[in-house]
């Protein structure tokens, strides 16, 4: 079977394009991925089709999914209550998956701002937001978010109103977290779809707020 690390150049993918290799030779680790995958396929543990479909599945998971959840919570107080009580069940109301982990939604309000980190690795609500960004997995974020959250927020350009409590959540075990950011002013009467367009991934991780229009 010919290796196919070149074929990604041909993908006209609407989402983030595959980054081409810096040169044409495989690194040891890229070669290991090829070897492991080929052997697993030959042993019948996975199929090439399953791998391809799983890659596509993750590509299709973007923060836009989480943004829909936030927008719904902003316009529907009863939904918000259900979301805070049982996040996994509530997201299925929007046709989203329950997901493999328990979803804890933490709400920002006038008095408190929530921020999420995984100091031990990179736990993240992937099934709702897609793959986490590099900075979320970086040493700097994982080290400092628990210890000096306000300084980290400032680095993201986030200034909180005086008297706001900061609550950091370290995702160390089987929970996954979604921050429900505050609905910005100037959005009265907006449709859910329009509201969702304001909600960024970074706001749902808790390093910033949703910017007013």
């Amino acid at each position: 079977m010919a290796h196919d690390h070149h074929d990604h150049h041909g993908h006209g993918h609407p989402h983030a394009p595959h980054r081409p290799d810096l040169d044409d030779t495989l690194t040891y680790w890229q070669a290991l991925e090829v070897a492991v995958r080929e052997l697993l396929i030959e042993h019948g543990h996975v199929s090439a089709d399953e791998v391809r479909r799983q890659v596509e599945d993750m590509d299709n998971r973007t923060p836009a999914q989480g943004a829909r959840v936030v927008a719904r919570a902003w316009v529907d107080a009863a939904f918000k209550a259900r979301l805070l009580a049982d996040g996994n069940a509530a997201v299925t109301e929007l046709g989203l998956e329950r997901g493999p982990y328990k979803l804890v939604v933490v709400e920002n309000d006038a008095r408190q701002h929530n921020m999420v980190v995984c100091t031990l690795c990179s736990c993240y609500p992937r099934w709702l937001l897609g793959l986490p960004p590099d900075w979320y997995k970086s040493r700097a974020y994982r080290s400092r978010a628990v210890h000096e959250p306000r300084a980290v927020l400032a680095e993201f350009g986030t200034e909180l109103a005086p008297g706001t409590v900061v609550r950091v959540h370290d995702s160390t075990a089987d929970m996954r977290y979604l921050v429900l950011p505050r609905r910005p002013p100037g959005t009265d009467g907006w449709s859910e779809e329009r509201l969702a367009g304001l909600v960024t991934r970074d706001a749902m991780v808790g390093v910033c707020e949703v910017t007013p229009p």
Partner: protein
Amino acid sequence: MADEIACAFAPGAPVRVRAAAPPGHVRTPWYIRGKRGVIERLCGSFRNPEELAYTRSGLPKVPLYRVRFDQHEVWPDYAGPADDTLDVEIYQHWLDPAGGD
């Protein structure tokens, strides 16, 4: 063997994270060991990751809690208000009752 260990703590209970330092795969962060907090909620019971990491069953399931800590309790040099908090998921076997200490 029973499939689940009984829950020892209720929400609001004061607890202290054990200051143990075993080798192996541990999900209790170093920075929180020995610190005092309160149970914020019971998350449910889950297979023990310390055992799953070595391909064992992880049974019986262990109760998992979110424990809320005052940041000033966790970090002597914390730069922020007294009411800032840090919530960490901790398995029951890493918690002792804090009681009056």
